[in-house]
């Protein structure tokens, strides 16, 4: 039976970074990927803008991934592609990982696990659109797979529902390839994607963005022939009388991403209802000892640079892991925040260089982030603006605050208004 110190599940940007970091820190490492090639979703993200934070360069997705893949292939890291994890079980010394691939079924033993399983797109069924079930309704990621990997244009004339980044990127991509994108419809009053993508993907190509609008029905038998769109009120309910029929052969959905944590749940890992990823401490260890989480499985990131960063942290922590009692305290996010990661701090570990990731719940101008311990403010930082699509990152030295398990640590945002 093969035995490892660290098994990393998922060969996207988080898993690649985690495997490299685990190996560098001395762990005998196996990287498992279900697809034929490493790189995860970056393989089909052919647009540029990746790596600005990490490499100060504007790379395409495949270029960014290749930098890590080359290192993994040069390093002493075992990789298994076209390999699917079917079961995780706890053992006395760690975990048993059962996989299936062309060679058959195999069980591998490991001391620690890094879950880098990424996220999934929300589908048409999950946003409950009424009507028939014709061909021509795709998630943005599926449309991207067809266009960028298979070289097949999935639509000639389409409507995009949701203003997530992949939807905006696909609006531009389909337009470049000769399709007509009739409009992007967003149920919320503000866009979900990065502001720069609204400009470089929609405005540059005169693609209209309809805020507070949604698709209420799909029409067509074998193939989509039209969608019905309508304006919505402040509670996101369609306003009767505003319906309009838009003729199209494609409906592209960009309505959100959900961390993929079925494997984590099979081990009893506690999930955070806000992030839909595991509850983690500053070392990115989940509620189960020896199980670490990173990348979009932990929380949906806006930039791949931060995905790699969390992968490195998780890989390092997994390689250096030794069982020890925990002394954890919760790091609470006030309702002004959509979420904050990590959700806990283990006071038995070094918390002097903890990286915090957070998003505000609403678009806020001129505001201040406050960190309070037992009601007393210990840190604050001003922001000219905070926007939920743009994740914030902050390095924090928690060791300076004399924390105990009973400390009440809270992150909050207050709007200061115009001075």
């Amino acid at each position: 039976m093969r035995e490892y110190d660290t098994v990393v599940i998922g060969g996207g940007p988080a898993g690649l970074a985690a495997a490299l970091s685990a190996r560098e820190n001395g762990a005998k490492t196996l990287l498992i990927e279900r697809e034929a090639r490493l790189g995860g979703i970056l393989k089909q993200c052919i647009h540029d803008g990746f790596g600005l934070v990490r490499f100060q360069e504007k790379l395409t997705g495949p270029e960014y991934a290749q930098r890590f893949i080359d290192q993994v292939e040069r390093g002493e890291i075992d990789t298994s592609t076209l390999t699917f994890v079917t079961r995780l079980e706890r053992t006395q010394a760690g975990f048993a990982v059962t996989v299936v691939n062309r060679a058959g079924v195999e069980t591998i033993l490991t001391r620690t696990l890094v879950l880098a399983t990424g996220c999934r797109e929300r589908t048409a069924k999950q946003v409950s659109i009424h009507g028939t079930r014709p061909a021509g309704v795709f998630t943005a990621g599926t449309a991207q797979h067809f266009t960028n990997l298979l070289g097949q244009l999935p639509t000639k004339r389409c409507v995009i529902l949701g203003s997530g980044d992949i939807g905006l990127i696909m609006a531009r991509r389909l337009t470049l390839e000769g399709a007509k994108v009739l409009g992007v419809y967003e149920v919320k009053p503000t866009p979900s994607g990065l502001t720069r993508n609204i400009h470089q993907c929609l405005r540059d190509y005169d693609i209209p963005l309809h805020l507070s609008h949604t698709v209420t029905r799909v029409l067509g038998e074998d193939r989509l022939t039209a969608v019905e769109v309508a304006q919505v009120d402040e509670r996101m309910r369609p306003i009767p009388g505003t319906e309009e029929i838009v003729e199209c052969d494609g409906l592209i959905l960009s309505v959100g991403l959900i961390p993929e944590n079925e494997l984590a749940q099979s081990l009893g890992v506690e999930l955070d209802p806000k992030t839909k990823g595991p509850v983690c401490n500053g070392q990115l260890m989940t509620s189960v000892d020896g199980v670490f989480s990173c990348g979009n499985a932990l929380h949906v990131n806006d930039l791949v640079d931060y995905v790699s960063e969390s992968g490195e942290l998780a890989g390092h922590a997994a390689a250096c892991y030794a069982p020890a009692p925990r002394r954890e305290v919760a790091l609470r996010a006030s309702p002004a925040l959509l979420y904050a990661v990590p959700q806990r701090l283990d006071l038995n570990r070094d918390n002097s260089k903890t990286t915090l990731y957070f998003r505000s719940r609403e678009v806020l101008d001129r505001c201040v982030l406050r960190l309070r311990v037992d009601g007393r403010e210990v840190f604050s930082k001003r922001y000219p603006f905070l926007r939920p699509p743009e994740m914030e990152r902050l390095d924090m030295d928690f060791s300076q605050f004399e924390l105990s398990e009973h400390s009440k640590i809270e992150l909050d945002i207050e709007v200061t208004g115009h001075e």
Partner: protein
Amino acid sequence: MSELVCIVCPRGCTLRVEEEGETLQVTGNGCKRGADFARSELTAPMRTLCTTVRTAFPDVPVLPVRLSAEIPKGQIFPVMEAINAVTVDQPVDMGGVILNNVLGLGVDLVAASGLLRPADG
């Protein structure tokens, strides 16, 4: 005064540009690149272009490619047409040039993926 959103990096700063005689005064930018972007955007907007090119390899029907530098915004569709006329029939490593000096714009079309990396390379 005009207002625009910087697209240089994901921060997406809101830039305010005021004309002062011959020069453009930029505020709201988080870094120098923002000021450069605002000036270029208001005089001669430039864009990068990333797309795919057809190949003769059945396992890799299309190869991700990009231009080596920015081109004038108005040249995007003419350049797309030139790219769509190309079929890659030889292995090419990431960064390898597929088309020299596209439409005389002084930029090359380069492979942005290692999918067709030569076997011995």
